[in-house]
């Protein structure tokens, strides 16, 4: 317990970031800013985006899409993971499907997804498709690691299947699920940007596409920085959630 509260004090993470920034500033000196702008350039570009209102306007869209896809992935992945873990028949049917979802790259989906799902929803779909397997796989492993002694106990006292799942399986799956959620939450922001880059008019990814075409590397990195902040924020939130769970 001690460890984890320490971990979440602001200091060490900030220190890590500071080291990163210093290294970047140093290296940037050697390159043309079109290739690698300095952190200062990037911050200026970020400020420009923020002042222009773009950051918020586009960022909001991406965040909503990201969270929607992520929420969908958790909402579907958890029950499917439980089912696969519990039932060998379902496993046979759906495991390949999970792998298929996981392996197919964005470009292969693109045409189909654009036509089926519609443009604005492609990023949601892409986030779903990238994070869903993480949730499912971790849930499966969690189910497999459940203490058999407790299951026997529940069986003797004739606890109903649905209560066993909620009250015996889920609490034991929780740490696995948390790992899955933590990993998925990080991936979400990358996936949403990537999908927007390929398919959409608005959102962080679209902003990045424009910056890339115009060789505006500072703006590209400003968007990236925004993503990183999103990622760190999300990670912090998930860590809080985990601590909450662990305290119990």
């Amino acid at each position, binding site marked *: 317990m001690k460890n984890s509260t320490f971990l979440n004090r602001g200091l060490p993470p900030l220190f890590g970031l500071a080291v990163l920034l210093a290294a970047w500033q140093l290296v940037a000196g050697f390159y*043309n800013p079109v290739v690698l702008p300095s952190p200062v350039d990037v911050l200026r570009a970020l400020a420009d985006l923020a002042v222009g209102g773009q950051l918020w306007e586009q960022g909001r869209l991406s965040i909503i899409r990201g969270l929607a896809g992520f929420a969908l992935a958790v909402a579907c992945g958890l029950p499917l993971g439980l089912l696969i873990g519990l039932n060998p028949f379902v496993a046979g049917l759906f495991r390949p499907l999970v792998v298929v979802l996981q392996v197919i790259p964005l470009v292969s989906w*693109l045409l189909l997804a654009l036509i089926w799902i519609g443009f604005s929803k492609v990023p949601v779909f892409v986030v779903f498709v990238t994070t869903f397997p993480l949730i499912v796989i971790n849930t499966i492993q969690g189910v497999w690691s459940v203490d058999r002694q407790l299951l026997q106990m529940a069986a003797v006292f004739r606890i109903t299947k649905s209560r066993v799942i909620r009250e015996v399986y889920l609490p034991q799956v929780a740490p696995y699920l948390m790992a899955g959620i933590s990993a998925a939450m990080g991936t979400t922001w990358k996936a949403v940007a990537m999908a927007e880059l390929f398919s959409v*008019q608005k959102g962080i990814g679209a902003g990045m596409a*424009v910056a890339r*075409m115009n*060789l505006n590397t500072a703006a590209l990195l400003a968007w990236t920085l925004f993503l990183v902040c999103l990622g760190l924020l999300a990670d912090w939130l998930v860590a809080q959630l985990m601590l909450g769970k662990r305290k119990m």
Partner: protein
Amino acid sequence: AGCGNRGVSDKTPSAGTPDKIIVQVPLAPPTAPLFKMVEDGLPEGTKLELLVYNTVDEATARVIKGEADFSVLPVNVAAKLYNSGIDISLANVNTWGILYLVSVDDKVKEWQDLKGMELYVGARGSTPDVLTQYLLRRSGLKEGEVKLTYLGSPEIAQMVINGLVKNAVLPEPLVTQVLMNNQQARVVRDFYTDWQRSEGETRLPQTGMVVSNGFVRSYPGAVTGFQKAYAGALDWTVAHPDQAAPLVETNLKMPAPVFVRSMERTRLQFAGGSGASKDVSAYLARLLDFSPDMVGGKLPDEKFYLSE
């Protein structure tokens, strides 16, 4: 073909005017006149909606779905779509050659000088790639004598700027970006002139605009009006790049000076579908020789070209 057109294009009254026209455009020079058109408005108060696309996949998806009335596309992509049974025709060709061979190496003056060197080209199998290979071959170089390396065009430009890449094939406005950021970089060859040198008088059509045939049938009048307005705006853009620049800057985030200077090397000229058919079919025929997949396996027939 397609899966049902969007409401606007399908309204039956054949002589009416549409509420709005949807045009999808790339982040590139032929888009500039359209901003002018948005500003000026279309005749009869029809609204003009622009969709800027990032990737060709996105554009083709919209064409297939019938979600755009007009789409600015590479000419060969238009042919591919047509040959796959999508109900479209080529309304006009507006961009003629925006590809250049750029080098930071003083010794490179001709294609032959590239022998034994590495040349960076945007995406494999794209028109820049095929045209480069074609011109290399026309200069008497054999396959493999120039090592072609493929990478995204923006990345190539960045690497040329930083001196990490010596020779590259780039489109405008990236050429201008490179020239402005790296004093050593020079334009060595112009694809357009080299094309004409080996093909005679045919021009090099690169980007055109396709229109959905559903739209044409519903609103023939609007198509003509749109074509006219576009031709006018295009001429205005060519004549007044400095006035067009702010529009491009606000809408595409492209720095004004870059746009103005890139217009020196961007051949924008309006040619209606049937008017361009000779150039286009000559061009497509060459591509077909080279790689049938690039045009959809065959030359498109007459109906591909929208008659005026």
